[in-house]
């Protein structure tokens, strides 16, 4: 791999052990992935923040990095923590979980990670088209590549932190245009109107695509879909595949050029009416309604509030909304949070129900609008999940 003089100095340890280690990880990974050089990044996003995900070994590694003086060199954000640190839920967890979760957050902040704790880092700093990033969190990666026209692979959680420390990542995968060429054509027949159908569409697109898909819409263009539905679709693609990117007709910057240079090895049609039937076959209820996977933005929070006021979620014992500290604060300023609290809604601020062991909260069955949460919650928490939209 060709390194600049500065990168060589980082790797030699001239700027400290933490940076040396970060560079070693990135260079070794880069070599393995066929990279010929590094690429400076403008923003790193770290995953693996929940204590339930990374455990004591994760804490150990972060402690070691902090001891070595690790500090990020570029704007770095992090994924949500588990619910053990969310004020609305903290007292339902044992002290050990709260302490360990807190330690993880402290360590990340000590390295200069921005007080972010959201899976939608693009609301904190919106990458511009053509920017190179090192993001972990598949739903955010898909959004960055497919909606914003930025360049990022689906980095591992630790590797993304290393990239934040080094200010660069390895130049491979979708940092290179040749690996952004669509290879699968997907035609969507019918109009996608709701977030939950958009999520089911994403699961299908992910499952059937052998390479980056170019998605054509016969009905409503994704440009006219609410952004919340597009977020749901992309998060679901990331759940059902290892794709970092989808080219959405009408949305992805440069989509016409991608269509021109596409090299399709397979083609598929998805009928929306089949997805609607699939949803119709969902049976069962949940004790708790969970929404905010990915985290709700302010518009989605407003929309949800109107529905809660109208009684759409009556019948559920609890309604949990996961969102970033930033959107929560904006919601408080607008009085939305207060109104929702009065109606029984609880907030997982800077937290994520998917990476929390929900049985510790006495939950056995959840309902959710998120195809991603619907897929992961049974695997991670061993509770049942049913898909119910709003």
């Amino acid at each position, binding site marked *: 791999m060709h390194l600049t003089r500065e990168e060589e100095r980082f790797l030699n340890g001239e700027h400290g052990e933490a940076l040396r*280690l970060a560079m*070693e*990880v990135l260079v*070794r*990974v880069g*070599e*393995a*992935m066929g990279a010929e050089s590094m690429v400076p990044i403008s923003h790193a996003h770290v*995953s*693996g923040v929940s204590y339930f*995900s*990374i*455990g004591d*070994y*994760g804490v*150990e*590694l972060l402690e070691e990095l902090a001891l070595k003086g690790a500090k990020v060199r570029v704007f770095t954000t992090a994924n949500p923590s588990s619910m053990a640190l969310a004020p609305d839920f903290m007292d339902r967890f044992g002290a050990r979980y709260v302490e360990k979760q807190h330690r993880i957050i402290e360590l990340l902040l000590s390295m200069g990670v921005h007080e972010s704790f959201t899976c939608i880092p693009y609301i904190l700093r919106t990458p511009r088209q053509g920017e190179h990033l090192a993001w*972990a969190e598949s739903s955010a990666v898909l959004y960055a590549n497919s909606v914003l026209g930025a360049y990022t692979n689906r*980095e*591992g*959680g*630790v*590797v993304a932190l*290393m990239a934040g420390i080094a200010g660069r990542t390895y130049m491979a995968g979708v940092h290179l245009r040749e690996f952004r060429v669509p290879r699968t054509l997907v035609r969507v027949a019918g109009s996608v109107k709701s977030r939950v159908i958009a999520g089911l569409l994403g699961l299908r697109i992910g499952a059937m695509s052998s390479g980056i898909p170019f998605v054509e819409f016969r009905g409503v263009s994704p440009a006219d879909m609410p952004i919340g539905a597009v977020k749901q679709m992309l998060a679901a693609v990331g759940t059902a595949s290892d794709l970092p990117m989808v080219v959405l007709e009408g949305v992805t910057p440069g989509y016409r050029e991608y269509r021109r240079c596409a090299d399709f090895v397979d083609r598929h049609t998805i009928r929306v009416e089949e997805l609607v039937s699939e949803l119709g076959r969902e049976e069962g209820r949940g004790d708790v309604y969970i929404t905010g996977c990915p985290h709700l933005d302010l518009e989605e929070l407003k929309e949800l509030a109107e529905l809660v006021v109208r009684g759409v979620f009556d019948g559920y014992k609890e309604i949990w909304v996961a969102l970033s500290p930033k959107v929560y604060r904006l919601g408080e300023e607008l009085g939305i949070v207060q109104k929702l609290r009065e109606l029984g809604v609880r907030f997982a601020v800077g937290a994520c129900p998917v990476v929390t062991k929900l049985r510790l909260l006495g939950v056995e069955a959840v309902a959710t609008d998120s195809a991603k949460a619907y897929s992961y919650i049974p695997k991670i928490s061993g509770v049942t999940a049913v898909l119910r939209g709003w």
Partner: protein
Amino acid sequence: MTLVFKARRVFGKDAEGVALISTPLSPLGDIDPESGVVKARDSPAYGERLAGRVLVMRYMKGSTVGTYVLYALGRRGAAPRAIVVERPDPVLVSGCVLGGITLAYGVEQGFFEVVRSGMRIRVSVSTQSVSILDF
């Protein structure tokens, strides 16, 4: 005789140990991070301890958390002497760097065809190769 196979890359320290063959393992779930014992029932290495062995698989499976498990194994001295795979991935590579575990990848096909558990293996950083000793 010694059979020598070229690798695309070997990094870490030179290592020598007894081969332990496995089907692809996911560090999270398939390996106990404290003892380094293989927990995957469908692996031929089930129940074996990784320490002192050269773990041979085609590739490693699994999520980002695998990096932490490899790191933990390294810290506890429960890691294998070396890991030899055909196909590398970022989780495996980053885990081996952080855990101080020698890794060889892109090794010539022939190695995987003839290697058996119990054979003595040498993994060499200086010659970027993997050898079967006393074949």
